[in-house]
């Protein structure tokens, strides 16, 4: 990294940015095809949004550690209030609603809550005295911080996002070093409670989704339709796909949501197994970089923040890909950096920005920190 390339550019985390650009460009191509060979309405706004949020991520990466820690709690509270506002508006408007119209963007507060909860918990554990980690004082406030937004999101109802928030929070708690037996106990309790929650906690439509996930062929034209068509799209792509703009499943509307939740299937139909490996590889590079940032961080806040953000992106990717391949029930979770949609792009770019921020701290901070 010397000579020709200017230092400010050479400094950037290219091992993450390069696969990110590949994903965005690939996503734009797939969206181009999903719109039947047109930049409108998906591909162009996808690229523009990415440009805007990339700038935002760079700005975010300039924040200092103190500033980030200072804003953690206010951001959490503001997002929580917005979640409450969605509930109120939904209640007044007489119907469930997930987004707030801020004029320039239709914001889903539940989406923004995913990085916000990570930031909040990272700050909480960073300031928690080390000796208190294995005590209830490490658990109860964190539990309350997680469960409040999860409860609000469940009310919407949005199972997928509430799971994502829980997952992000739990990952931070796990990384923070809370006793392992708690997690094992929680896992056991979840295993016992899951059937109860399934029968009493889930909406009928959600129960149905789980059933159809277990046996999609039982109702190929009804509830199993999404999974069946998605698998047909991926399976018919074969090794190298049907060719750009040649996907019949997406072009003839057999594939539902070809530009959002099922964009991977749209991609796989036209680019085949090879395209799938490119996408998986790009995500592996981004997530691997995220983990390396977390591990390279010298302070607890940075570690937890970077790890939580990486886990949040991972959750999106994993659930979405498992869903389109028929390994998970249909939950409305888009694929980061490829699916069309402002809120998910915002969330994921906030995660990327935070990771870049921690990465910058790592470079400026002393290698071995005596200071926290």
């Amino acid at each position, binding site marked *: 990294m010397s000579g020709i390339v200017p230092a400010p550019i050479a400094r950037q985390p290219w091992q993450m940015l390069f696969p990110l650009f590949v994903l965005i460009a690939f996503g734009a191509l797939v969206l181009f095809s999903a719109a039947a060979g047109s930049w409108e309405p998906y591909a162009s706004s996808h690229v523009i949004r990415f440009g805007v949020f990339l700038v935002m991520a760079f700005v975010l990466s300039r924040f200092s550690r103190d500033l980030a820690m200072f804003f953690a709690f206010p951001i959490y509270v503001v997002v929580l209030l917005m979640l409450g506002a969605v509930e109120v508006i939904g209640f007044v408007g007489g119907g469930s609603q997930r987004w707030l119209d801020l004029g320039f963007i239709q914001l889903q507060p539940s989406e923004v809550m995913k990085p916000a909860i990570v930031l909040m918990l990272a700050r909480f554990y960073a300031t928690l005295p080390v000796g208190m980690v294995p005590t209830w004082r490490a658990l109860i406030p964190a539990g309350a911080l997680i469960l409040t937004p999860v409860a609000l999101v469940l009310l919407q109802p949005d199972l997928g996002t509430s799971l994502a928030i829980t997952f992000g929070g739990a990952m931070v708690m796990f990384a923070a070093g809370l006793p392992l037996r708690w997690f094992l106990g929680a896992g056991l309790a979840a295993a016992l409670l899951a059937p109860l929650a399934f029968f009493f906690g889930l909406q009928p439509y959600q129960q149905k989704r789980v059933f159809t996930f277990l046996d999609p062929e039982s109702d190929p034209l009804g509830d199993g339709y999404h999974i069946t068509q998605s698998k*047909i799209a991926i399976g*018919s792509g074969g090794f190298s796909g049907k060719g750009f703009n040649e996907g*019949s499943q997406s072009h*003839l509307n057999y594939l539902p949501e070809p530009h959002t939740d099922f964009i991977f299937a749209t991609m796989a139909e036209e680019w*085949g197994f090879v395209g799938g490996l490119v996408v998986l590889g790009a995500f592996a590079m981004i997530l691997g970089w995220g983990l390396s940032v977390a591990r390279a961080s010298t302070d607890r806040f940075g*570690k937890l923040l970077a*790890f939580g953000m990486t886990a949040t992106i991972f959750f999106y990717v*994993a659930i979405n890909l498992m869903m389109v391949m028929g390994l998970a029930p249909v939950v409305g979770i888009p694929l980061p950096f490829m699916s069309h949609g402002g809120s998910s792009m915002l969330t994921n770019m906030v995660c990327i920005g935070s990771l870049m921020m921690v990465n910058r701290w790592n470079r400026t901070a002393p290698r071995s920190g005596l200071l926290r």
Partner: protein
Amino acid sequence: MRLRKRGRPREVVTQSTLDNAFDRRTFVIGTAMGGLGVLLAARMGYIAIAENEKYELESESNRVNLSLIPPRRGWILDRNGAPLASNRADFRVDIIPERTPDAEATITALANILNLDENQAADIRKRVDDGPGYQPVEIASGISYDQFAAVSVRLPDLPGVVPQRGFSRLYPTGPSVGHLIGYVGTANAEEYAEQDRNPLLVTPGYKIGKDALEKQFEQDLRGIPGARRVEVTASGRIVRELETREDIQGDPVRLTIDGPLQDYAARRIGLESGSVVVMDCESGDLLCMASMPSFDPNSFSQGIGRVEYAMLREDERVPLRNKVLKGLYPPGSTVKPMHCMAFLDAGVKPEETIMCNGGRRIGNRFFNCWSNHGRVDMAKAIYQSCDSYFYHFAQQVGFAKVAEWAHKMGLGEEYPLPVQSQFFGTVPSPEWKQRRHDSAWQPYDTVNSSIGQGYYLTNPLQLAVMSARMATGFKVMPRLRMSDKQPRFEHFDFSPEEIGYVRQAMSDTVNGPGTAGRARLPFEDIKMAGKTGTAQVVSLSVSDGRSGPWKYRDHGLFVFFAPFDRPKYAGAVVIEHGGGSGAAYPIARDVMTFMFDPAKGMQALRALEEQWGGNAQQRLNSKYRAYAAAQGESVPPVPARDEDIFDRVEAEARLAARQPEGLAEESNPSRVDDRTPEEISRSSAAANAEPEQ
């Protein structure tokens, strides 16, 4: 603290243990992430590579929709190769109720686009409600290209609506051939189940033969469906055509029917209700089987309207029944010449006479004749239709002998014809009466039967066959399907003199001092022979048979053959409640006139049709309009008939064909069709393909 002492010692947590735990745990999580990534890659490889074939097939079956193209139905041709039933290319719109969430709104929208009136919309709604749902219901056929296009562009808003190009059945002479040919229609649920759920039957636009010859020759006429592979979206919209296999038109069926003669006879029946059968004595070819009043098979084939069907059903003249085969009438005096042949066979000499004193005593009762004929021999008994003569000789030879001959002459018989059903009627005999009514034969049974009354019942086809057999002395078998083979018929053992005697007597009925003087043909050299008949419907105490309520009037019958000395054509005319034979033989005369001289025949018909208010088709149409108006429904005007196809089987066509040579040269194409059925079918395929856009 005490409690804690007894419990587990609290683990020591320091910054470095936390850092270690973080490293350890993130490593585990990272490994898990990597593992999941590998799992996803493997899963994708499995779906996309190992199961590729299966999913590719499913994707293709999603994308490609195979639809059948209904085959064009084979033509039904007359003996000269002119079409009695053909196809007309048209645009049509169907609706599949099952795929229409809001049928009511969709039908209303279609009615607006297609300018359907309330009456038609109500018919469609009824059919949509009654139908099995998966089966398409025709909204309209024969619509213009503009309407077709208008529906096509609105398809996204009209779920379940199928616009298509197709063919509709065309019967150029309409009501004239209704009973003979039958009609076609959409297969119903039972027919679909019967024919092994053949998908062709529920293909929109496909129609099967529903009655008569259309049903009888269904397999010949059907053809082989084509197939069209189209790319469709998930909502069923057609994106493009991939490949098309053309249909193969059904085989033509060539009948022995003479199209123009059939049309002429049907129209000549006019306002009466009855039937005319004409057959070729030498080959048995049925040249004409007209039954009127009839329905218009064109209406039936387009899905007959509620109102029109009600009109036909309510008519006391039963236009839905084929009277040639299913009308049974006492033959009356028309069987007398045949009975004479039975007497001859029994050894009665033609010269033997009896005295008719206005009747005759048989046993201990006196039976009236319709007149006092004085001394009567066989000839006079035929041409004067003296009842007494038949009372006497039937009694003398025994009616079993007469009945035996009636059967030999074709009465009470079914013929091997490709028809749905024939009513074979009754030839009474002592044995029959014992079996059927469990009572003994009485002299008055002989008396009644000897003049074609009593239990005697025949259909017009049997009368025509009887006439042909009597005229030739051969056991002529009627046939309906054209064949070049000249059939050989069994000969009855009558001497030429005996046959000549009866022929002469029957000729005298018309041309001599007989009962049907007005039946004389307007030719010097061609003479028709015949026998009149009047069949009582109710006893004389109810009605005199000539006036009063229509349904109490006598049936008028006439059997004939011509020319009388070398019989070529034979036939029968039966006019229901015509008030006597006077209603029947003028029709026979005109039909035979047309046979030998179309111009003269047409002249007679034109004058009559002017009085009647148009030809059969026109009268049926105006009757329907009047009926519908009475029901408070409006009926659209009858579309103009501009296809030149009509010209070939209408009675007028024969005229054109027989025009003087000079004129024929001016009008370039010959009206006489001398092509083979194959050629016609080929050229019809070309003609049908033409109007496609």
